[in-house]
């Protein structure tokens, strides 16, 4: 690409055959109300937005605004997740319901969780569900651990994006294992999106500087004291991290190297 900016259409993120002009993907959980959700998503500039599927509360708050009215599917790519699924069967069932809910839309975020405390992915169940979903025609973006071998296996199964965690979901601990993320990125032929664990803007920038294709986050924005301001900070961090990656950082040196010329000193 040319030496301009990365956030122009010249550097799109391609997910499942569709180009996106933003590399920040956001969730819709944990906001104080629908209006804050809407404003934060707008400030983030994200186009791919995750939602969860739950039983409709029959008879309760019939006039409560519907999330899909706040983030309309004609303006955003809705990415239904399988959050809360602890086995492959339930995750697959949830994705099929999502496809019906969204009129045949087949892009899903697969997560099969193994444990309540860590929310770490159950990898064997994730592999099983991914195989079923890919065979069923879904475009699967898959949440996984930062294990490079598993990331490659998920790619080989046919997932359209592999999404390793930076740290446990909702922990905000930042990228705990940058070398694994780097290895995953270097081996990948599908987009690698850090999903979970980012806490603040510098974490998002680090992910992008490592060469990740994008970052998916929820709590880092929704859990900030000022979520809308943090959404804007994250947008900039993703853009600057991406540009820094494309620019190629200077080599690290142990000792100083003067920026001003040595020649022509007055004494």
């Amino acid at each position: 690409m040319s030496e301009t900016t990365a956030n122009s259409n010249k550097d799109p993120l391609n997910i499942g055959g569709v180009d996106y002009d933003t590399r920040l993907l956001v969730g819709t959980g944990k906001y104080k109300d629908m209006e804050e959700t809407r404003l934060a998503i707008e400030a983030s500039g994200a186009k791919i937005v995750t939602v969860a599927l739950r039983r409709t509360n029959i008879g309760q708050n019939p006039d409560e605004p519907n999330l899909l009215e706040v983030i309309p599917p004609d303006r955003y790519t809705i990415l239904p997740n399988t959050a809360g699924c602890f086995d492959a069967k339930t995750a697959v069932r949830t994705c099929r319901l999502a496809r019906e809910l969204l009129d045949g839309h087949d892009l899903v975020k697969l997560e099969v969780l193994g444990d309540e405390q860590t929310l770490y992915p159950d990898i064997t169940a994730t592999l099983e569900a991914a195989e079923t979903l890919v065979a069923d025609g879904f475009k699967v973006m898959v949440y996984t651990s930062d294990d490079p071998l598993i990331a490659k296996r998920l790619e080989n199964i046919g997932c359209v994006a592999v999404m390793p965690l930076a740290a446990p979901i909702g922990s905000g601990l930042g990228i705990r294992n940058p070398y694994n993320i780097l290895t995953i990125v270097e081996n990948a032929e599908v987009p690698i999106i850090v999903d979970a664990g980012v806490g603040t803007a510098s974490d998002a920038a680090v992910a992008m500087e490592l060469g990740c294709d994008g970052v998916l986050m929820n709590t880092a924005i929704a859990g900030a004291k000022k979520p809308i301001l943090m959404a804007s900070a994250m947008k900039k961090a993703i853009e600057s991290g991406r540009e820094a990656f494309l620019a190629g950082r200077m080599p690290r040196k142990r000792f100083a190297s003067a920026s001003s010329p040595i020649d022509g000193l007055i004494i």
Partner: protein
Amino acid sequence: MNIQLNGESKALSANASVMQLITELGVADKRLAVEINEEIIPRSRYEQHCLQQDDQVEIIHAVGGG
């Protein structure tokens, strides 16, 4: 007859269709998905699909999530 709706028992007139059920619930105009006995009922079949005694019905919608 009785069905299980989102995990709770609900009385319904015999042979009610899915459309009758969601209309009675006041959610017919909402964006939702319906599953009966773990099988998805496409929106196009809400009128013709009739519920049976003891059907396990799930009605789901999108909520905030990450």
